[in-house]
């Protein structure tokens, strides 16, 4: 029997290794898999390359992982926000690398990684510093820049419903990078609000088919980053 369910976040992230590349879902706090990230902090892997749209807030979740000096390099589109101090401090000190990628290019690179497309052309960033040293090419008289796929060892994703086969639904705008990150990772690790029986998700409304998912762990009352930040919580 196929059973992708894992007992808890600790078991789900147990085999992440030093130096791994990890996609972490979420746009701001929506879809941020805080419990999985905290389990990764506890687990201790370091020298990680993390791709995520942002760099976290306060001292929890992704910001806490960065604060714990586990991340060698961030690949993201928007590494600052009103409550984001951890990344900027380390970045200014030269203690963390940054690969800045336009948000749509980041999404498309991840989708390409999942879809077996090693490179593609996009009009985004043409003529800007983010296209420097990249191949550009003209099609029908318009310039495009070539971008490479982004694939990863693991993805940490937050979804809504999941079954033992890995089928997923998401909650509202927490969907964001989840579906494509599941596609692009060798092993996608997903925390869901609730695990249901196979068939408990209508085949028409499955957003991520289980083929893209490696592990599913139930986290019934996931924390919200903004609540933790407002409470002044620091992890660990």
């Amino acid at each position, binding site marked *: 029997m196929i059973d992708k369910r894992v007992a808890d976040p600790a078991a789900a992230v147990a085999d992440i290794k030093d130096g791994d590349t990890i996609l972490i879902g979420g*746009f*701001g*706090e*929506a*879809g941020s898999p805080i419990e999985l990230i905290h389990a990764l902090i506890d687990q201790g892997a370091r020298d990680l390359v993390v791709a995520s*749209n942002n760099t976290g807030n306060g001292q929890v979740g992704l910001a806490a992982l960065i604060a714990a000096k586990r991340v060698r390099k961030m690949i993201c*589109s*928007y*590494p*600052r*926000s009103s409550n984001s101090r951890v*990344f*900027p401090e380390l*970045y*200014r000190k030269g203690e963390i690398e*940054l690969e*800045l*990628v*336009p*948000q*749509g*290019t*980041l*999404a*498309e690179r*991840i*989708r390409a990684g999942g879809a077996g497309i090693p490179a593609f052309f*996009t*009009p*985004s*960033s*043409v*003529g*800007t*510093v*983010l296209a420097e040293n990249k191949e550009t090419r003209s099609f029908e008289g318009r310039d495009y820049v070539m971008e490479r796929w982004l694939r990863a060892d693991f993805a940490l994703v937050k979804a809504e419903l999941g079954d033992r086969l890995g089928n997923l639904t*998401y*909650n*509202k*705008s*927490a*969907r*964001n*990078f*989840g*579906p*494509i990150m599941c596609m692009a990772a060798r092993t996608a690790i997903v925390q869901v609000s609730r695990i249901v029986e196979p068939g408990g998700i209508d085949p028409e409304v499955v*957003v991520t088919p289980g083929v893209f998912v490696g592990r599913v762990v139930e986290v019934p009352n996931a924390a*919200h*980053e*903004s*609540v933790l930040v407002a409470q002044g919580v620091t992890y660990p």
Partner: protein
Amino acid sequence: MSADLTHTGLTREQMARRAARDIPDGAYVNLGIGIPELVAAHIPPGREVVYHTENGVMGFGPPPPKGEEDPELINAGKKAITLLPGASFFHHADSFAMIRGGHIDFCILGAMQVAANGDLANWSTGAPDAIPAVGGAMDLVAGAGRIVVITEHVTKDGAPKLVETCTYPLTGRAVVARVFTDLAVIDVMPEGFLLREIAPGVEVDTVKRLTGAPLAVAPDLAVIEA
């Protein structure tokens, strides 16, 4: 240039109201963070506009009442939103397929600088200690149907934001079609900036002096109905 700061001009709400009149009925619209967000409240009666936010929502509505915010229902500015009937959710690759693929008709962005050829700089000062953050701006200017800018005419220090050539790192080349400022509505024409409309009580010479590039004046120059 402190004297220039005393010029009469539009409020942010008035700028937003003027920009809103440019949005055609039935348009799919993406509003940047800041003043552009104010535009939604000013769509003229009788027009239906569908709002897209790049984090995966089409058809959202005004912010919810205090206390009813859902941390998993937010816009690109990470602010709580509501849904209108006919809304939909989709993942980030599909969301930027909408943008890059030319499906978003109208995009209103903020700006640090707009050049006379339509170049836009709105993501980085390029300062060595700045944390560069681009978000979806480069995708929006590359893909949206019509890109307009809402911005104060000058910086807090009084320096022109409409310039001959951008000194900040670019968001995109030759992408801006029109600029709405507190002083004027200015089009980016093949020949450069063209003053189309002017705020009530503001002199053309004032606008010219506060613009960092040559400014032609439309023969049918109008006063902005603020």
